[in-house]
């Protein structure tokens, strides 16, 4: 019914280096580190001096053990400025200060789960970065951030087609309607017309 081919759902492409940029700012969560390593290989081949203008901000993600050596491997490619964070929130805090001191000519690469990409892009958007300057590749969980249109609370890490809103406890249908400014999908009350009648709950965003 409500879930149709909604055009606002973001589509991500595999990351490619853009050596037209002077500065390369890279963010990864969990398995996203592998995509960064691939891009760094391209930069090393095409414009090795640009590695000196490259910095990476990393967060281990859900399976920390599997990605424990990402920072070291990025170091080994020739990037000296690699910072590791405990969680996405502290990475984003630093990301904001980095954006604030970044110059025109910066390219942003984001790799990781879609919710991580969305949060990074939301910040980059505040700094008037646009699609010519930002590249993103989705790797990892597709669990969604869901913005409740009724109480404006965002519920994190939603894997199911319907979800109980963390703010108002309404049952929400998770739509494909995506907001870049909220970095979240829209959730609308699913049983407004027939209270208590809920469609079967299924895990769809894994």
């Amino acid at each position, binding site marked *: 019914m409500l879930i149709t081919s909604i055009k606002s759902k973001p589509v991500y492409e595999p990351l490619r280096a853009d050596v037209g940029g*002077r500065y390369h700012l890279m963010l990864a969560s969990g398995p996203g580190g592998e995509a960064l390593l691939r891009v760094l290989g391209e930069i090393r081949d095409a414009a090795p001096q640009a590695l000196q203008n490259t910095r990476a901000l990393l967060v281990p993600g859900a399976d920390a053990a599997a990605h424990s050596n990402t920072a070291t491997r990025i170091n080994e490619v020739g990037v000296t400025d690699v910072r590791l964070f405990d969680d996405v929130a502290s990475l984003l805090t630093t990301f904001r200060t980095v954006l604030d001191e*970044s*110059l*025109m*000519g910066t390219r942003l690469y984001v790799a990781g789960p879609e919710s991580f990409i969305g949060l990074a892009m939301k910040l980059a958007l505040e*700094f*008037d970065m*646009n699609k*010519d*300057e930002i590249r993103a590749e989705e790797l990892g969980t597709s669990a969604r951030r869901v913005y409740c249109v009724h109480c404006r609370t965002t519920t994190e890490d939603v894997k199911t087609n319907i979800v109980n809103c963390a703010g108002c406890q309404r049952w929400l249908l998770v739509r494909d309607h995506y907001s870049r400014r909220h970095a979240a999908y829209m959730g609308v009350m699913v049983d407004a017309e027939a209270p208590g009648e809920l469609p079967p709950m299924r895990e769809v965003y894994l």
Partner: protein
Amino acid sequence: MNDAQTLAVEVKAIEQITPLIKHFTLAAVDGGDLPAFSGGSHIIVVMRGASRVHRNPYSLLSSPRQLSHYEIGVRRMEESRGGSHFMHDSVQVGSSLEIAHPVNLFGLDKIARKHVLIAGGVGITPFVAQLEDLHGGTVPYELHYSVRSPEHAAFLDTLRSREGDRVHMYYDSEGHSIDFEGLLSRQPLGTHVYVCGPAGLISRVTNTAKSCGWPNSHIHWEQFSAPPMGDAFEAFLARSQLTVHVPPDQSLMESIEAAGVEVPYLCRGGVCGFCQTRVLELDGELEHNDHFLSDADKAKGKSIMPCVSRAHGKRLVLDL
């Protein structure tokens, strides 16, 4: 736009502000307000001379908040086809002119975090109005203004008194030059650069910005090309079943208009793309002088911008 939609204005004041630039103040003949516009807009001035009609684009430099009159600055061109000489020599206080409604092809980016404006010579005019829009706002901005020598610095006193050290002057006569690399390699994220002036200045700015890694979406420029002169040629208008002779000192668009056929236009300077016309047959070569068509489209030869472009060869058939 065509002549049926023009506004009748009267010249209220003329001031020679530099050796080459005259400053004109225009007001509606009926005394009312003129249409609203935003900084960076231009108008087309229709000049009905004794032997021909000129239609030239001029940026509005008056305040967008003041609609009782419009102000434009007209530089006397050495190789004029007549338009700027008409404005300088034949137009007097009290003269009537027709103008087309303002159109903005050079607007400020509304979500920019900083604006860098770069003007060369009479290219200052759109920025005078844009600075009115920027003044008092929260977004930082700076103007870099390059002229031959101090006597050529139009509007500098006004700009200096209001903008203070946001105005950076460069005088060729003193050997100054803009350090483009230094300027464009040190701008914060979210900066937009705007350039208006001679072709050489525009290409220096756009090329340097790109080499500093700026995406095209952050680089804005405007240059109204006067229609270049060239060899005479003929065009056949297929729908009107008319042959038009284009003399060396007249543009294709002007010749078509002189034959009584209307071509839609906004800028008449090869920028807006509004007059793009299909080429149905061509035995010869097109001489593309516009800034609108891509190089690939120019090479295809299926379209022409009659405001500034010409042709050589035996036959040119247009979808008009």
